[in-house]
């Protein structure tokens, strides 16, 4: 089966939906498809809690937001992209406001802002502690106003169709029927999110398996800076559910088992509101040195909100209270929340320029799937939802301009036939003696052990060996479910394949980078090395594993300096 649209957007989280709206605003004549693995409001963006950064008031400036972001990135961010990002952000907040987002408010009715890690002023706009949830619903609802946006909910991306280095469309499985659909398009925007489920202890939704990254990579598009994975300081023990940084933004403390606010030792000026890489390392150090609490699910640190009082917690952190009670049996009004650093964000992604363009003509990427890069080696809290809005919009506009200027060209029929054969003849109904679930479990274990907050060459090499072994075993994976209709077993098998490719890029990239920068900390190379490593990693797919190349960082006006908080 075949459908045609001018623009096909894959992924319906914040970035994808913002892109759709931007393209529809550009021209009501364009036909825009939004293709997503889940219903749009089931996307992972709904899990964003704390807020979205934007310069709104007199006490702040674009330069200050840019500087905080660049320093937070440990100087690996491209400064031209950061400058564009901070300038475009305020309008996005106001747009969401006029589209119905229930922003939290000051008494006089203006939009409220709260403090966040690594930001010099109260810059984070929020909707209680459900910011991502409300932003997603707002964009979804707004999207319903445009008759030229067509949704394909619960369609699973299987490949990009590219000819002469130009995108011709995608193929995707309609889950309900199990049919493979060819989407022909002039432009394609990837907005499929990060790769967080590479890890076992993670804040990510089950569905975040790096599909778009892996498919782009296999199609020859390079991935950038994949070794940089963010560990959020406060994952709820044992589930890993995110306990927002806003807990600390609202005044919460981190304590070790001696009751000490240990951040005093690591970041005396910013304390609990230092950037995430700094806080996560500090917590892990406390635990390793025996000052963590002991619990039935391993050591933890106490996130103490008890001094904030019930009213404040109910008003500003209602989801946190509810989640802590439901998932850990702890009422934060009464007692501290058990937390531990947790895999949270993929700084790296599909290599794009400032216009969200990839190396393939007509193929764009935006949001967590992409690496522009504005986050460099460490993202600041509340800059990711912001990135989705700004770069989602840019991707939508650029793709619209491109599509308006371009004649339609059909996708080669052979591409569809080959994909149909690959999926239904060779993959579905395949016999074997390996389980995709077991492979995923072992992958998670090696990533949690060897590519966590503190990394060393020996551990990384062990992970690389393990990943290669798992890739070999994966060739023999069995798909138990033989039906086409809503085959979630088939999906898992695909997803595990994606994750193995991505894990290999993360691991080898991390082994190569013999320095410590932002979230990538090498105990055997504990210093940042600007002479050799002030550069972005690019990984290219080959059948024998990734080939690496490096490109310079764009510096406009902020020279790298020592990073202290």
């Amino acid at each position, binding site marked *: 089966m075949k459908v045609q649209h001018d623009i096909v957007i894959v992924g319906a989280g914040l970035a994808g939906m913002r892109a759709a709206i931007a393209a529809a605003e550009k021209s009501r004549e364009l036909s825009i498809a939004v293709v997503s693995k889940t219903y749009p409001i089931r996307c992972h963006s709904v*899990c964003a809690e704390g807020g979205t950064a934007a310069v709104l008031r007199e006490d702040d400036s674009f330069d200050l937001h840019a500087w905080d972001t660049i320093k937070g990135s440990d100087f690996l961010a491209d400064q031209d992209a950061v400058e564009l990002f901070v300038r475009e952000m305020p309008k996005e907040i106001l747009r969401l406001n006029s589209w119905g987002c229930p922003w939290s408010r000051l008494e006089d009715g203006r939009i409220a802002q709260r403090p966040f890690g690594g930001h010099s002023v109260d810059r984070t706009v929020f909707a209680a502690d459900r910011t991502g949830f409300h932003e997603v619903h707002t964009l979804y609802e707004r999207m319903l106003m445009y008759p030229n946006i067509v949704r394909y909910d619960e369609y699973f991306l299987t490949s990009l169709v590219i000819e002469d280095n130009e995108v011709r469309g995608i193929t995707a499985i309609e889950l309900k029927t199990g049919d493979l659909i060819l989407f022909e398009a002039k432009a394609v925007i990837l907005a499929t999110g990060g790769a967080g489920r590479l890890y076992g202890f993670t804040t990510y939704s089950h569905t975040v398996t790096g599909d778009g990254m892996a498919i782009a990579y296999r199609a020859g598009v390079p991935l950038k800076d994949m070794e940089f994975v963010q560990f959020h300081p406060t994952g709820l023990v044992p589930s890993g559910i995110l306990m927002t940084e806003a807990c600390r933004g609202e005044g919460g403390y981190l304590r070790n088992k001696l009751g000490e606010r240990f951040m005093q030792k690591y970041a005396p000026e910013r304390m609990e509101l230092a950037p995430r890489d700094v806080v996560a390392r500090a917590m892990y150090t406390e635990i390793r040195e025996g000052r963590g609490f002991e619990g039935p699910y391993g050591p933890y640190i106490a996130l103490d909100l008890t001094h904030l009082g019930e009213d404040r917690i109910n008003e500003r952190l209602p989801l946190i209270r509810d989640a802590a009670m439901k998932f850990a049996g702890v009422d934060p009004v009464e007692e501290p929340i058990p937390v531990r650093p947790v895999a949270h964000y993929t700084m790296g992604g599909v290599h794009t320029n400032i216009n969200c363009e990839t190396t393939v003509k007509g193929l764009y990427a935006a949001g967590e799937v992409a690496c522009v890069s504005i986050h460099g080696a460490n993202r600041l809290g509340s800059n990711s939802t912001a990135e989705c809005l700004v770069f989602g919009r840019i991707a939508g506009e650029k793709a619209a301009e491109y599509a308006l200027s371009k004649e339609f060209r059909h996708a080669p029929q052979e591409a569809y036939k080959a994909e149909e054969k690959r999926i239904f003849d060779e993959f579905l109904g395949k016999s074997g003696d390996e389980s995709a679930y077991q492979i995923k479990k072992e992958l998670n274990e090696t990533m949690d052990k060897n590519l966590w907050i503190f990394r060393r060459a020996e551990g990384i090499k062990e992970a690389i060996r393990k990943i290669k072994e798992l890739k070999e075993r994966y060739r023999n994976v069995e798909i138990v479910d033989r039906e086409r*209709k809503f085959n979630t077993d088939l999906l898992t098998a695909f997803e595990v394949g994606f994750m193995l490719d991505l894990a290999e890029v993360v691991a080898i990239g991390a082994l190569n980078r013999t320095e410590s920068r932002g979230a990538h900390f090498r105990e055997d190379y504990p210093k940042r090395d600007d002479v050799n490593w002030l550069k972005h990693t690019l990984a290219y797919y080959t059948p024998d594993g990734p080939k690496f190349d490096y490109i310079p960082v764009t510096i406009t006006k902020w020279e790298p300096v020592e990073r202290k908080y």
Partner: protein
Amino acid sequence: MGSEVTFRIKRFDGEKSYWQTFKVPVYRGMTVLEGLYYIKENYDGTLAFRASCRMSVCGSCAIKINGKPRLACETQILSLGSSNIDIEPLDNFKVIKDLITDFEGFFKKHEHVKPYIIRKDDNYENPTEILQTPEQLYAYYDFTLCIKCGACYSVCPAAAREDYLGPAAITAAYRFNADSRDGGSEIRYALVCGDNGVWRCHFAAECSEVCPKQIDPAKAVQKMRVKAALHTIKSIFGW
């Protein structure tokens, strides 16, 4: 620790429906969703269910657990107080496979009530800061918390007939009508007072009882009824 429960799951393969049982080892804090994953990963990869965030914000995993619609991700197995756990797909939705039901119609009904801000001065290019006091915010805020999980719809006696808009959609209409930034109330009253709308509600209020977000959709439906009645009278007399 160390105990075991029996999951009895109502399966559907596209043609026939049948029950299947699985023994699942449980630990303190383990959720029904984790139990389903345990079964899928260890016993039967063909078992189909939806899940994503596992923290009760995405709305994917509402199913019937021991007869009551709940989110699988936030339901602890031990809290059910039984060693037999019956799992079924939601009622009032067509089953596609096992626990996966067809939500297309449900989302269409939501879309039908125009659940977005309607303003004459909508300015995409140069938006201004529209003020809203905390008091104005709280007038509608609770109704923004709907995750569209379908629990309310699945127990609604009126929704057993397919064309009724249902509690979630009418709640969405109410949410926007109560928002100080919106100017589309009259349009929405017209949309919810047709014969597939508010008059079909039986006041069973089961929707409010099962809502995992404690939103009280029954209250929203009632409020919309009063307003919609006024709207109808006004339009008859041309006021």
